[in-house]
């Protein structure tokens, strides 16, 4: 069969998938095509007039890619895997959908990145961060880093790297490549007073000594150097200074780039989103965007599904936040805890494959910090009782904790109570919750929301 015929066949399955309402065709068409044609990713990418750009990281892939899209489109027409299907099949499906696109902009799973990026030969590749995540699925952090290192050695000189200088493990990758933009924070006033418990990569990648930090911004991200072998943070050329947290609504900062400086008001809270914005800005600049275009794109950004997504429940506003690993969870908690008011919460913990079957990571999330602010909490999902127990050991009084394994029941209880609330959920739990909210007519399906 000719490649064109295979493409046609694969596209036809997308229509079926959408009409049956099973995920909007975000993976099936690509999976089919890759089965028919092993080098389909490469062939499809070669058809993109302006090539492809790829974003990978443990945390922030979806948000960073959406921010870059907000900057680049318009004027560019993009094809994206915006619904989070970030394996080879999801990327192929996105290219099948985006026939008239100029540029492919894809988020790619960190373990799948080496194979996918090698096939796509992207113009630019963002390496955002590496945190411990789903050890039962990904294995140890060093394995992912080793895969990225091999990839950086294989990619041709036409691929520009855009990397987080503040992450020592990421900074150990592709250090010798010529086209390499480094981004990082440059605002000691925004630093943490101490390293968080769950910090990864505390020990020098080269010599094993403990890194010294002039400033720690998030997990093990910061202005680091090794006192023993002298390795140090590469000097970032795209930085954020004068960071101003504006409650849970926004964060302001001065974006400093080789193209000049500009003040940005990002309509999302949290230092972690400043990192996402820097990655998106550095990527867009690499792809030829102007500084004003970057500023405007970041300022008109709206949250990706389930990432600080605001939902009107009728009886009050709920904010839905994806939490999937210790570093991401700690940043969400740090952001929420900045507002000291008592909070009504719902926490949904699933242990399906995409969440990580091993739920031990919740013990590395600093719920202790949030505990004094929890006025009431409903725990739901496949591991609801485990979550409730975690909160008990974090210091939340038992009479404030309710266990409702069933998500519909949990949402009913939340809506009945009224008022504003925060919904923390693991990946499949977030999709489950959105599914129930969709049935209630409160949100759009995630693949439409993402489009």
């Amino acid at each position: 069969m000719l490649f064109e015929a295979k493409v046609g066949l694969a596209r036809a399955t997308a229509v079926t998938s959408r009409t049956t309402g099973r995920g909007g065709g975000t993976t099936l068409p690509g999976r089919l095509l890759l089965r028919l044609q092993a080098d389909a990713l490469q062939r499809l990418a070669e058809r993109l007039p302006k090539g492809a750009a790829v974003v990978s990281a443990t945390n922030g892939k979806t948000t960073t890619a959406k921010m870059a899209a907000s900057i680049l489109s318009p004027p560019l027409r993009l094809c994206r895997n915006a619904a989070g299907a970030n394996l080879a099949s999801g990327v192929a499906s996105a290219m099948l959908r985006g026939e008239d696109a100029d540029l492919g902009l894809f988020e790619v799973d960190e373990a799948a990145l080496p194979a996918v990026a090698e096939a796509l030969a992207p113009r630019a590749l963002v390496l955002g961060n590496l945190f411990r995540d789903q050890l039962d699925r990904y294995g140890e952090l060093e394995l992912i880093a080793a895969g990225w290192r091999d990839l950086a050695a294989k990619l041709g000189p036409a691929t520009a790297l855009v990397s987080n200088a503040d992450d020592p493990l990421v900074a150990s990758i592709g250090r010798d490549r010529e086209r390499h933009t480094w981004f990082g924070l440059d605002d000691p006033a925004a630093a943490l007073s101490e390293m968080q418990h769950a910090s990864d990569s505390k020990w020098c990648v080269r010599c094993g000594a403990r890194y010294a930090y002039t400033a720690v911004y998030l997990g093990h991200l910061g202005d680091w150097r090794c006192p023993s072998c002298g390795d140090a943070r590469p000097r970032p050329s795209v930085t954020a200074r004068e960071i101003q947290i504006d409650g849970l609504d926004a964060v302001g900062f001065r974006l400093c780039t080789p193209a000049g400086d500009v003040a940005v008001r990002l309509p999302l809270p949290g230092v972690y989103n400043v990192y996402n914005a820097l990655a998106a800005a550095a990527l867009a600049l690499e792809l030829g965007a102007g500084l004003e275009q970057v500023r405007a794109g970041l300022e008109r950004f709206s949250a990706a599904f389930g990432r600080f997504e605001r939902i009107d429940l009728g009886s009050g506003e709920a904010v839905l936040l994806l939490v999937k690993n210790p570093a991401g969870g700690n940043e969400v908690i740090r952001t929420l805890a900045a507002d000291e008011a008592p909070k009504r919460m719902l926490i949904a913990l699933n242990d399906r494959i995409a969440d990580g079957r091993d739920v031990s990571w919740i013990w590395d999330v600093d719920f202790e910090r949030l505990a004094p602010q929890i006025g009431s909490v409903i725990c739901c999902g496949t591991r609801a009782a485990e979550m409730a127990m975690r909160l008990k050991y974090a210091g939340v009084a038992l009479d404030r904790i309710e266990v409702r394994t069933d998500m519909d029941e949990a949402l009913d209880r939340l809506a009945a109570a009224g008022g504003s609330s925060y919904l923390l959920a693991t990946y499949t739990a977030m999709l489950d919750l959105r599914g129930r909210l969709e049935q209630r007519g409160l949100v759009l399906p995630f693949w439409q929301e993402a489009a």
Partner: protein
Amino acid sequence: MTRITVGHLYPEHLNIYADRGNIAALERRCAWRGIDFQWIAIGPGDLLPDADLYYLGGGQDRDQLLIADDIARHAEPLRAAVDDGAGVLAVCGGYQLLGHYYRGHQGDEMRGIGLVDLVTEAGSRRMIGNIMLDSRLDGAAPQRLVGFENHAGRTFLGEGVQPLGQVVHGHGNNGEDGGEGVQQGSVIGTYVHGPLLPKNPGLSDWLIGRALERRGQDQQLAPLDDGLELEAQRVAAAIAAR
């Protein structure tokens, strides 16, 4: 006031599977009973302090290599402490370090402290998943232990050395002999994390009881409301059985 002391070996290196949760379980369960709980971090280069219970968690391979030489210093002091009645709880990588060695695929050996007669060899496939075992601490009535295992090492116990329990669901020490972990007096090693102690309050209390006993203090522990703990255990056991 009654009190117990826990010496935590290399908390900054060996903490990959939420080992903090095990410490939290001991700490809270003591606090709820009015038992003073003291936690001492033992880092590279530190001398081994006196403690009622020593805790050793699991680390990434790389982090574990960083402390492999340092821990050799503690082999004799730990043995002396155990002879003096101290307990040891070692999980995952820490469990492997209790034995004579870990032998890699290329025959390379990382020495353990030899506190217990066991050896570990790199296996060809990782043993990953929810696990449940039946455990008889001190030959008492069997109790269920649940959690998660994720290890490539296959551990074999020396002759006459008793496992912590018999695998009901999961892989255990080596996926072959049905044993999981090790128990030798008040020394316990296991691959079960999750973390181990919060969902297994019986084991937590056994460790606390042993520590109090060492201090010659009343070890009749006041009962606690373990409703959530046992519900989390029940759910984990049901998932392990799938």
